[in-house]
């Protein structure tokens, strides 16, 4: 057992971090706030050139054939850098859907939404070419459908919550398209959830680091505010939330990558490998959403009034945390899912 990042994984994370810092630093990213298409063609092609969309595609199919663990490490960096765009859904779709592996933007739409009367929401409508539709849990066929985005009647949302995540509404029902041959809806959903949770852990870590740096500099009462225990304790709790979520995330990714680990765990808990895997993924998503939302709020609190301004970027992290948490199930839904599995 060696449940730590390998040297290769650390280097992978550092490489992606350096690439994003060079290509898309926050100052650049912020110039796209409110734009219809926040990921320019050049950034998208730089990303494609790194091979990130073929990460999970087997080598036999021309991909890099890396595991979910490696994709997770990369997704954490995406979350940390607030990388916008349908990157996660495109990465997750690639093993089942060749155009995604070739860099065509893909959105994933989940029909299992608690409020099925409301219109569907599609992220990054101007950056996607395809929509993969995940069946609702009561759909007996359980098929993933692929729909040409150009065929959809999308209405752009004027002011999406996250200025870096453009949204479109789409009237229900989302019919049409073709079944995606060879795709497994459960597997697609699970790996997307892991990657989303990884972006949340990256987001939670970034806001903790920003707040710590600010607390060291900001002076009040003739001393850095970070020397006050009231501030220290807030930030210590942020670190704990991020590390706990990261631990859950790693365990879930290993279980998805290595069925033997899931089998041993299932044996210990007298349940099925499928149930322990779902439980681990739901736990990771629940804790990662919690960490991202609460750590961003904590960072805003540490910044005080400035944290509430548009200028300070913390609101972007908080809003992005809300985008990811409401995708494929939020904390409440995850905790319900876990309780249904035990």
């Amino acid at each position, binding site marked *: *057992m*060696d*449940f730590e990042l390998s040297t290769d994984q650390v280097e992978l994370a550092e490489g992606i971090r350096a690439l994003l810092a060079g290509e898309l630093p926050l100052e650049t990213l912020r110039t796209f706030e409110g734009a219809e298409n926040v990921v320019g063609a050049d950034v998208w092609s730089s990303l494609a050139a790194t091979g990130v969309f073929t990460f999970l595609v087997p080598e036999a199919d021309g991909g890099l054939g890396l595991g979910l663990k490696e994709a997770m490490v990369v997704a954490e960096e995406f979350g940390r850098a607030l990388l916008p765009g349908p990157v996660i859904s495109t990465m997750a779709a690639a093993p089942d859907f060749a155009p995604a592996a070739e860099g065509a933007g893909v959105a994933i739409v989940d029909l299992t939404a608690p409020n099925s009367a409301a219109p569907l929401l599609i992220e990054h409508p101007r950056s996607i070419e395809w929509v993969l539709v995940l069946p609702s849990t009561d759909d007996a066929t359980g098929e993933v459908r692929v729909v040409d985005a150009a065929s959809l009647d999308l209405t752009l949302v004027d002011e999406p919550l996250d200025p870096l995540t453009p949204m479109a509404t789409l009237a229900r029902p989302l019919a049409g398209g073709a079944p995606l041959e060879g795709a497994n809806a459960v597997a697609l959903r699970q790996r997307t959830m892991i990657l989303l949770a990884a972006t949340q852990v990256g987001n939670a870590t970034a806001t903790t680091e920003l707040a710590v740096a600010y607390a060291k500099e900001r002076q009040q009462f003739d001393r850095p505010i970070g020397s006050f*225990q009231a501030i220290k*304790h807030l930030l*210590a709790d942020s670190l704990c939330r991020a590390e706990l979520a990261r631990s859950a995330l*790693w*365990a879930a990714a290993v279980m998805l990558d290595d069925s033997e680990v899931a089998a041993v765990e299932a044996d210990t808990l007298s349940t099925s490998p499928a149930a322990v895997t779902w439980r681990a993924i739901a736990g990771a998503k629940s804790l990662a959403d919690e960490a991202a939302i609460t750590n961003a709020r904590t960072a805003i609190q540490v910044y005080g009034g400035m944290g509430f301004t548009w200028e300070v970027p913390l609101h972007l992290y908080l809003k992005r945390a809300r985008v990811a948490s409401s995708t494929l199930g939020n904390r409440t839904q995850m905790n319900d899912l*876990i309780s249904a599995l035990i």
Partner: protein
Amino acid sequence: MDLRYTPEEERFRHELRSWLTQALPTLPPKPDATDWPGRRAYDSNWQRMLFDAGYAGVDWPVEGGGRGASPVEQLIFKEECERIGAPYVGVGFVGLLHAGPTIIAEGTHEQRERFLPPILKGEEIWCQGFSEPGSGSDLASLRTKAVRDGDDYVISGSKIWTSHAEVADYCEMLVRTGPEDSRHRGITWLIVPMDTPGIEIRPLTTMGGSTEFAELFLDDVRVPVANRVGDENDGWRVTMVTLSFERGTGFVGELLESMRILRSLTEFAKRTGSWGDPAIRRRIGSLTASFDALWALTKRNVSEAARNGVPGVGGVVFKLSYSEQGQALAELGMDLLDRAGLAASELDGADGLGPLPNAELVDNWIKSIPLTIAAGTSQIQRNIVAERVLGLPKEPK
């Protein structure tokens, strides 16, 4: 990033499990919690059984007489012991987890020869005299004084939170040998025989009604200078060295016990109808996620210790998070019991509650309360995380 155990680790687990399976049925009945001589006899017997089977001091280095197991094997040892319901370390706690490792690291050859084997065999019991009524979180302010007189130190003062004092043979004690205001620089680590004249023991009753620890009053207690571990005034460093023995497995038994209680609580909620309440289901779902994550964090910490010798940041993160989740679990248990928790001694099992009797849930609730106080309060732990991990500035003195 791998969660598979190696064939060697699996072999260790298999051998241990076989031994535990045949050893446990030979244990005598558990003594009452208030029967201290009985508890000492029971725990010492278990320690002797571990010793004879080669499992005493699993985490001790071979040169100290231990097994020198790897961090992962230490994890497996605790996991298997908890899963099968083996006794805890009990009254051997201070000797095996603290005093012994200190003597291994800092004691003289003679001290090691004299004191280590009886700890491993369960023959001698140790207690700890660190905290004082006036020195809790600020341990370096301790005032119990030791004055050199020929070949002896003469100790006067008082100590508090001394677990198992009534049945202990020796006390690992921190005393002030430097000037009053010398703080970390004027502390010495001494081995104090508990039968030395001048030691008075006053048991403290906890809010649970048991006497888990005591206050010690020391009045001209004479201890040979040969009982000093490390140099005079170097006791703070000696104490800190012991902390480096931690391999990320410190709370594994407690964590796995909490996870067992959570599973039983889930069954309990299903049997009693509370499961129909979505708020209860969500609390259980959320606790399950947190405890699963703490188990994963434990494996990270152990892996870190295997790589670098110490568990790193994760150790203190674990302590803080586990303490809070343990208390949340305990509160859920009391909520589920509701009024039955008010008279657990009368109603225990009366409503057919099955394998988790009322009394155990109430006991778990009481035990959860010091989680955020003992071994460093959560407030001190947060200061440590903030200053040593996040690098935030210290408070001005």
